[in-house]
């Protein structure tokens, strides 16, 4: 691990200080510049230590869940460890969703929670919650600090665990008396974790076998995921694809691992993947799976998934290999190391050009492109995303998304060019992730243009964070695709539940007749007025309800210095297509015409 100058200085002499001060010194030693959180009773000593500190900046969020998401967004945008902090009891339990989200997507965050004084732990004291117990299944590791002298070691270990191997969240629970206790502080240099030795370097024999399989394959496909991005292996991935002439499909979390405009990129596969990606993975004779976990949203019906294919599965986590699909060639290691080794090995051989296979893939691309039809009048959500993508392409742009239809349209139509520029909640599917993760991303990348693509349902789960955006002058642009529904729920109700729009209409109130499936007519007015809401927070609010205004409004928003919220009143019953029904094979895709 890299040691910084301040790190060394701290080590030279041990200084008497409080546990709180030791915590902050340790964070400084880890290079932490920003922590997202909300203070509270048992955190008072820690926030007191932050009061005059110039190196570690506390950002006051408006909800702890958003503090965790902001740390998560910061980590995804920068590749560094994100840090969030919450007080005991409700503060800590509010972090839970954010921690679970980071766990499912393998994002390195350190969550610090205050705990009641050691002597009253277990007595149901005021604001006591067993947060290490509550979070046990959703953390990579966790600590309850019982002795102040352990604190520096624990922090060192926590950061190391969060960012190495398969990254993930680590929680540190600090009782108030530990924060107040005196310690002779020195920051440890060594880490001693006898049970933690992640394999980074791949086995050379496996690499040779994989290279052989790649050379022999007629119709190979690379299936790349978040592991490629977290290992900073995007350029190695593109090298492999170009060298061996292999098309690449990515998972949702893999978006950005290869430029969307690259001729070998097939975009996202799976439930809402492109037809050409799903056809390619169905017809392939060799899947080169890297940093992925064969999630059900990707594979569809597992028994039918890529039946004729041999599988090379490369991942840093041995437990992922063979969990869902039994690979022919397993490789444990970091995606960067594996891809580099594969490229080097393949360079020794002459490689087939696979022109027939690439022609077939191109043909699918031409015959089944992602498409939508934008007529004059009400804007289509796909058109909005497409236009955002077009108008931001010359800038360093980071997209964050909510969860649901907005997220899938963003994944389909936004053309990400670099890793860490498409930030979305994958495994947990956490609605509300877009806005707070954008806050983290903007703090991490202050010069980038951060654009939230959100749904009206998702956005309303976290709208209080407009305050955080405003008071910190974050120039985050927010595009709300308002279809006045929990759109993905409504889509499933339309397709699988006979158009029973049960509790998915965001306009409905208690006077609505049961059995309504028709938007429009005598519906109650939409609440809230997003433009007025933005204005109440001192943020520019714009509304677009005509397709012809989409482009100029986005242009205007980009030109404005501060944050802008644009409400796009879009086609209410637009669906995300193509779509694979849950449990169906992924080459059986539904389209607009298949729906009654």
């Amino acid at each position: 691990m890299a040691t910084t100058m301040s790190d060394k200085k701290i080590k030279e002499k041990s200084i008497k200080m409080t546990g709180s001060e030791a915590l902050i010194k340790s964070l400084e030693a880890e290079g932490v510049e920003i922590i997202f959180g909300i203070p509270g009773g048992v955190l008072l000593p820690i926030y007191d230590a932050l009061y005059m500190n110039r190196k570690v900046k506390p950002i006051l969020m408006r909800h702890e869940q958003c503090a965790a998401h902001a740390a998560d967004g910061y980590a995804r945008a920068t590749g560094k460890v994100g840090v969030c902090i919450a007080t005991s009891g409700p503060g800590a339990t509010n972090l839970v969703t954010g921690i679970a989200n980071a766990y499912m997507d393998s994002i390195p965050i350190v969550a610090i929670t205050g705990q009641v004084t050691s002597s009253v732990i277990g007595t149901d004291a005021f604001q006591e919650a067993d947060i290490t117990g509550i979070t046990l299944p959703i953390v990579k590791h966790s600590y309850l600090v019982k002795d102040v002298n352990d604190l520096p070691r624990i922090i060192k270990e926590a950061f190391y665990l969060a960012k190495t191997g398969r990254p993930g969240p680590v929680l540190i629970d600090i009782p108030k008396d530990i924060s107040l206790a005196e310690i002779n502080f020195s920051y440890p240099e060594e880490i001693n974790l006898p049970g933690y030795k992640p394999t980074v370097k791949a086995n050379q024999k496996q690499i040779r076998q994989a290279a052989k399989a790649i050379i022999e394959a007629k119709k190979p496909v690379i299936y790349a995921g978040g592991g490629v991005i977290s290992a900073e292996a995007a350029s190695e991935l593109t090298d492999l694809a170009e060298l061996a002439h292999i098309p690449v499909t990515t998972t949702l979390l893999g978006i950005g691992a290869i430029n969307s405009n690259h001729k070998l990129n097939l975009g996202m596969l799976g439930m809402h993947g492109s037809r050409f990606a799903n056809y390619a993975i169905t017809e392939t004779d060799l899947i080169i799976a890297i940093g992925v976990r064969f999630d059900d949203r990707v594979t569809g019906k597992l028994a039918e998934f890529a039946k004729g294919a041999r599988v090379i599965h490369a991942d840093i986590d041995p437990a992922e290999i063979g969990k869902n699909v039994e690979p022919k060639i397993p490789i444990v290691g970091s995606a960067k190391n594996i891809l580099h080794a594969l490229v080097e090995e393949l360079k020794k051989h002459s490689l087939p050009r696979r022109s027939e296979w690439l022609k077939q893939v191109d043909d699918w691309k031409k015959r089944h492109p992602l498409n939508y039809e934008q007529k004059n009048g009400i804007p289509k959500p796909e058109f909005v995303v497409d236009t955002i993508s077009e108008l931001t392409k010359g800038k360093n742009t980071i997209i964050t998304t909510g969860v649901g239809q907005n997220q899938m349209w963003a994944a389909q139509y936004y053309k990400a060019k670099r890793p860490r520029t498409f930030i979305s909640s994958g495994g947990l599917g956490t609605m509300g992730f877009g806005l707070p993760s954008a806050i983290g991303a903007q703090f991490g990348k202050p010069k980038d243009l951060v654009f939230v693509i959100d749904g009206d349902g998702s956005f309303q789960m976290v709208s209080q964070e407009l305050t955080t955006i405003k008071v910190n002058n974050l120039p985050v642009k927010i595009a709300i695709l308002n279809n006045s529904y929990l759109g993905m729920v409504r889509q499933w109700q339309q397709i699988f539940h006979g158009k029973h729009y049960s509790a998915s209409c965001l306009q409905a109130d208690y006077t609505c007749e049961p059995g309504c499936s028709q938007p429009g007519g005598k519906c109650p007015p939409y609440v809230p007025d997003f433009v007025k809401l933005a204005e109440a927070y001192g943020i520019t609010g714009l509304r677009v309800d005509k397709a012809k205004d989409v482009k100029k409004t986005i242009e205007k928003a980009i030109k404005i210095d501060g944050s802008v919220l644009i409400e796009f009143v879009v086609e209410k019953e637009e669906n995300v297509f193509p779509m694979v029904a849950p449990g169906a094979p992924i080459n059986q895709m539904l389209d607009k015409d298949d729906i009654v």
Partner: protein
Amino acid sequence: MKHLLSVLVENKPGVLARVAGLFSRRGFNIDTLAVGPTDDEHFSRMTIVLDAEEHSLEQITKQLHKLVNVVKINEFRQGEAVNRELVLFKVKADAKNRARIIEIADIFRAKIIDVSKNNVIIEVTGTTSKIKAIEDLLSQYGIVELATTGKVALSRG
């Protein structure tokens, strides 16, 4: 199929909860679990007997390995290890049949560790099959209560 895992863990608070939590979260069943310190106070050994197919067993061990406090896992196949469990049986025994029960205990090299008017408590150590055999014999007199340590094991050699 039954499997015997010997898991060396760091002797730290919450380790048992992590291991038990992992089993329940991933839907694996533990038959027995015995835990205690080793000769090195920094480590404990968990001996776990579980019922699982080969594929799930592989998942279980891989997931266990991911726990930061788990240092080493051995799966003991038949004959690779010696294993024992200790069981206490409280058996109905009056003046009439007490002698016969003591005779059974002697044959199995079990010990009588408590005698009262209506019951005896027998301590028996051994392999699962031996324990099953004595249990079958004792059950005809009526087993009032039973307590077991679960299996503990060490590799041979």
